[in-house]
């Protein structure tokens, strides 16, 4: 049995490399879930389009690095701008439709973005993806060892956390929460609800773009299957299980959701079975949290309003 399923991750990568890999993934998902938390947890705008922002960031960085050999910082700058623009587009319908209808609108943007990444073969490489993305380098200094890249991801994750924390602790953040709790009330206080909703979408999407850039440079190969609806759903479950409306919740959610299923690898299950079991675990967690603790581990918001009818 053990011989049949090939080498364990330990033998393949070495313990240190493997742990760093997991830590880098956690860092990327912290950035993704914190940025989604700004939209879903603080403003109450649940979005299934987060993998689209993530994907746009990754593709912008990959295309710039491959076609123009542009440096990392310029890639990140352009990726944030373009993901933010897509965020603007996705955020606009929130002015007209709300609740689950809005979720379906973001769903539509996710499917359309995936379709473009997958089918515009001459530009994005289509299902073949984009191989050979160079590692991050600063002025000829290549950050090739894994731990250096980990420090870079850590730096960005901390930066994102700081920015988000400043944002939600500011008057801006209080308006977001007011919109979440009662939109009409926020408007009655003279707050321009539309402006805030669209702005938070631009910010959240831009931050998700950063995660995409890091991912593209780290994995060095991207294809559309990394940015599907299911990926969006995974990021949503991190936010929900960690706790919507609490930044630490998203950090803990990312750690739990990325690291916990890795334990399944060590039980000695074949890879396919482990992948399915991991998904079943996510699904079961979602149902269980909705039934028993809809606000998640640390959250303060449970998507409960606007409901019943």
């Amino acid at each position, binding site marked *: 049995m053990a011989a049949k399923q090939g080498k364990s991750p330990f033998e393949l990568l070495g313990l240190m490399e493997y742990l760093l890999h997991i830590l880098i993934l956690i860092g990327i998902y912290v950035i993704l879930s914190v940025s989604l938390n700004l939209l879903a947890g603080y403003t109450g705008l649940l979005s299934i389009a987060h993998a689209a922002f993530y994907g746009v960031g990754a593709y912008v960085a990959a295309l710039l690095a491959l076609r123009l050999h542009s440096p990392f910082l310029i890639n990140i700058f352009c990726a944030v701008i373009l993901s933010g623009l897509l965020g603007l587009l996705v955020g606009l319908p929130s002015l007209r439709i709300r609740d689950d209808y809005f*979720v379906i609108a973001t769903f539509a943007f996710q499917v359309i973005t995936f379709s473009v990444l997958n089918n515009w073969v001459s530009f994005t490489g289509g299902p073949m993806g984009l191989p050979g993305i160079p590692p991050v380098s600063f002025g000829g200094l290549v950050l090739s060892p894994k731990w250096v890249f980990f420090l870079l991801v850590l730096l960005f994750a901390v930066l994102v956390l700081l920015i988000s924390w400043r944002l939600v602790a500011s008057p801006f953040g209080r308006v977001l929460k007011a919109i979440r709790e009662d939109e009409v009330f926020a408007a009655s206080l003279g707050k321009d609800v539309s402006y805030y909703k669209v702005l938070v979408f631009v910010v959240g999407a831009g931050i998700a773009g950063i995660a995409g850039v890091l991912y593209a440079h780290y994995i060095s190969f991207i294809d559309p299957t990394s940015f599907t609806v299911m990926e969006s759903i995974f990021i949503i479950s991190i936010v929900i299980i960690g706790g919507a409306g609490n930044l630490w919740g998203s950090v803990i959610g990312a750690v739990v959701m990325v690291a916990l299923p890795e334990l399944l690898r060590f039980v000695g299950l074949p890879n396919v079975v482990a992948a399915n079991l991991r998904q079943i675990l996510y699904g079961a967690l979602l149902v269980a949290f909705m039934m028993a603790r809809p606000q998640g581990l640390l959250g303060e918001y449970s998507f409960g309003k606007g409901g019943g009818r």
Partner: protein
Amino acid sequence: MIFSQLVINAIIAGSFYALVAIGFSLIYKTARFFHFAHGSVYTVAAYLCYLCFSLWHLPLLIAFAAAIVGCIVLGVLCELLIYRPLRGRGAGSLELAIASLGIFIILQNTLSLLFGEETKTLFSVEVKEGMMLFGAKITSTQIAIIASALFVLFCGFILLKHTRIGIQLRAVANDPTLAVISGIDRNTVVMMSFALGSGLVAIPSLLLFTEIDVTPTIGLNIFMMSVVVMIIGGIDSIPGVYLGAMFLSFVQTFGTYFSSSKWQEAIAFCLLLLFLLFRPQGFLGRKAGKITL
């Protein structure tokens, strides 16, 4: 010739969409949330049929019946075990949809675990030469899909307009509070709509399965198409669903004819966005409360 073939193809696809979406729309009417697991009920129907017919070698009709009954049981179980307790504690439509998403993920991966990721077929390769109709090719399965869509449309219409349960269903859809005050048991009605909707979605699944293979992952697509059709058609009426399905399939069929079939999904969702933004109540719907402030 190519034109009539396109029209026939669009009618077939539209009938299929209508069959899939009618059950979904029935559930949305009474329960008021997006039942993601509808897509997995569709998949479960095909796999139950595969289990009974191909693995246990039962007669095809018994396999079909088992699949339909299995779907009804599955739909009712979702409602009783998960949605009803959630509604009981006053959960909103988003919370219910998230729980449903969880069920969807569990069911899809359980199917992969039990049957494997590879495609499954009911009959070993047997290319059926379609017959000609108005200069277009059509197979008997496709005729069955068109006929059953019309039949379900008709029955659904009669059911909603003229039977006791249909009237109760519409009452709950219209105004749950008022329905409860009038002595209607909302929970029973919602459960009935889950039973009906889940049983109905088995029909297109089984029909299509006689011609086309399935994989565990098709459920998401089925859910997406149900949503698009329901919103385009308007959630209020069964003819609306049929009209929405036909509109979607005609736009898709002719749109992909002039571009490429790979843009099918993108076309459907662009259409959905246009409707959400400019006519969110759909073709035949009244204005719903989910729109604007």
